[in-house]
């Protein structure tokens, strides 16, 4: 919808109102800032892991704006920081999750980069690639059965499309005509493995044929293109037109994660070339072209957002460490006698060793 220079090239007029467009931009900015802060927290030992989302923001914010938060269900993956932010996940919860403090709604149970929120209907991320896709389809089948007029969105990387569970899920969605949009963020790499080794097909979108659903390919660096496509498809899903598969071409600017060294498998020039296409300046150029943004607004926004980030980090830390014994909760609705005894022995051993009960 917007070209590299920031000019609107859509075949229709952009119908988003000014506050929405500005909010979108602020979300892109905030996501990038949060990403940078997360890298910093990891480097300084405050968090154990990061899965950078820089380069994926336009795709994720585009998706977020196409949803009706609290109604449509979201089944995200670990790189969806920008998506989580843009649907309104409180930043203190986000940083709580990333640092495993009491501010984490999931009680410090998972490693960083695993968002989740019941009020936002955002299914808690699992590390196991593609394992959430069948659940997302179940959500959509339930929506269809209940006739509640909502839909589900499910995101993943292109590597996920090779897993059997992914296939099982899309095939079931196709057979059921379930109201779901599968949004693939194709950044060309699954850790070090490029598309050529990942699959024999030229792209992901074409895989939709196998399931009798439409497949779309969109520039994932263009937030408005992602938004409009997703808006259409979510509406179609809600209206009973069944599932769709979207491939968003993006690039990850950072390494796969804080444990990765991407220099081994991809050339610096490639990264540099994609940096040129950064979705955030591109959208800014569009806004500036319409007179909706300028340097002053930029400075003000950055300051304000930095303040929000600082406050959230502080709040997340202030919430304090997760107690040791929370480890035993939430396995089943009630602990088994077996687990009760294990907890008793754990306590006894700690007492015997003169260790305290933990925070």
């Amino acid at each position, binding site marked *: 919808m917007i070209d590299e220079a920031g000019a609107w090239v859509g075949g229709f007029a952009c119908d988003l109102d000014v506050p929405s467009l500005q909010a979108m931009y602020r979300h892109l900015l905030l996501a990038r800032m949060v990403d940078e802060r997360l890298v910093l927290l990891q480097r300084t030992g405050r968090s154990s892991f990061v899965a950078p989302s820089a380069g994926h923001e336009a795709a994720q914010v585009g998706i977020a704006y196409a949803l009706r938060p609290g109604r449509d269900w979201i089944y995200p993956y670990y790189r969806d920081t920008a998506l989580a932010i843009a649907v309104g996940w409180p930043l203190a919860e986000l940083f709580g999750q990333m640092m495993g403090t009491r501010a984490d709604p999931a009680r410090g149970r998972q490693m960083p980069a695993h968002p989740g929120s*019941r009020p936002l209907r955002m299914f808690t991320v699992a590390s196991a690639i593609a394992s959430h896709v069948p659940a997302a389809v179940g959500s959509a089948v339930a929506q269809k059965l209940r006739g509640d007029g909502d839909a589900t969105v499910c995101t993943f990387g292109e590597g996920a499309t090779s897993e059997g569970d992914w296939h099982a899920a899309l095939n079931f969605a196709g057979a059921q005509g379930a109201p779901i949009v599968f949004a693939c963020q194709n950044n060309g790499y699954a850790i070090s493995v490029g598309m050529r080794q990942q699959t024999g097909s030229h792209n992901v979108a074409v895989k939709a044929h196998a399931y009798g659903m439409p497949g779309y390919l969109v520039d994932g660096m263009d937030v408005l293109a992602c938004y409009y496509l997703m808006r259409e498809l979510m509406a179609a899903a809600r209206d009973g037109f069944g599932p769709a598969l979207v491939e968003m071409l993006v690039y990850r600017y950072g390494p796969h994660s804080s444990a990765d060294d991407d220099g081994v498998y991809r050339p610096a020039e490639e990264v540099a070339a994609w940096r040129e296409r950064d979705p955030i300046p591109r959208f800014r150029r569009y806004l500036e072209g319409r007179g909706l943004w300028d340097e002053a607004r930029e400075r003000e926004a950055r300051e304000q957002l930095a303040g929000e980030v600082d406050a959230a980090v502080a709040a997340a830390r202030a919430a304090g460490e997760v107690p040791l014994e929370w480890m035993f909760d*939430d396995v089943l609705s009630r602990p088994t006698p077996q687990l009760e005894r294990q907890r008793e022995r754990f306590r006894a051993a700690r007492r015997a060793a003169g260790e305290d009960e933990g925070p």
Partner: protein
Amino acid sequence: MPLQTYVQTVARTLHEEMRRDERVVVLGEDVGKRGGVFLATEGLYEAFGPDRVIDTPLSEAAIIGAAVGMAVHGLRPVAEIQFADYVFPGFDQLVSQVAKLRYRSGGAFSAPMVVRMPAGGGVKGGHHHSQNPETHFVHTPGLQVVYPSTPSDARGCLKTAVRGDDPVVFMEPKRLYRALKEDVPDDPDQLVPVGRAVRRREGGEVVLVSYGGSMAETLQAADALAAQGIGADVIDLRWLMPWDEALVLERVAAVGRVVLVSEAPHSVGMMSEVAATIAEEALDLLEAPPLRVSGFDTPYPYAQDRAYLPGRNRILHAVQQVLDY
């Protein structure tokens, strides 16, 4: 109530629960028009239609995985895996999603569901239609596991499972599906509490512990012993996770001799856990080693279908050993 087979009881119980609670849905391969290859879902499609009785594609990952999303959305899915042997293509869903959802979300989400599966040998089905994979479930924290041996227990445990707030792996001994008929109680709310075993016989000379399909041979052995004047106390575990340590330990403490019967492969089976727990908690009360009579550490054979099972004679041999000890 009229006399009912095990598999008829499953179908009728599902019917009752679906009528009671419209959130209950059934999904699986051939569960619809066909009524299930064993007819465990017979009549449900006609009564509740294709939205609540879903014939799925041939994918256990889709069946179990979709059930997660349905449960999160507020439905109560009852998934059928056509044979327990075919749970493995869906095993990642069970381990990575079903079992961990409550934990990893800090209780924000959970996946109460029932995953039903006919299990066990004795039907000349070879190793892909005879396995007993309960070890894989019991060792996966976050699942409840039950393996009822009678129609009445199937009914009570299935109702407990459908109404509970946790994921339950519900194993059914397929060789008993039509082996016997029982006068099944018709109280619609008669539940079998989670984790509660039951004594099937009382006796003071040896304790026999078993569950699922092997209860048949275990009771045959107990009857043979009774005929010889030897009193066997027989415990049917029913629930494998959580399992009824209290009852087992109480009876072993009282009697001092115990034989553990299970048809799954011997190494790291359910009965390894029961034996280890007995050794840990009741060592000094044992008059003889706790002996296990199990399936073998081989894939389930075809030609020797019955010989693989811990039959009456193998059980009696072990009993003799603990009595002679």
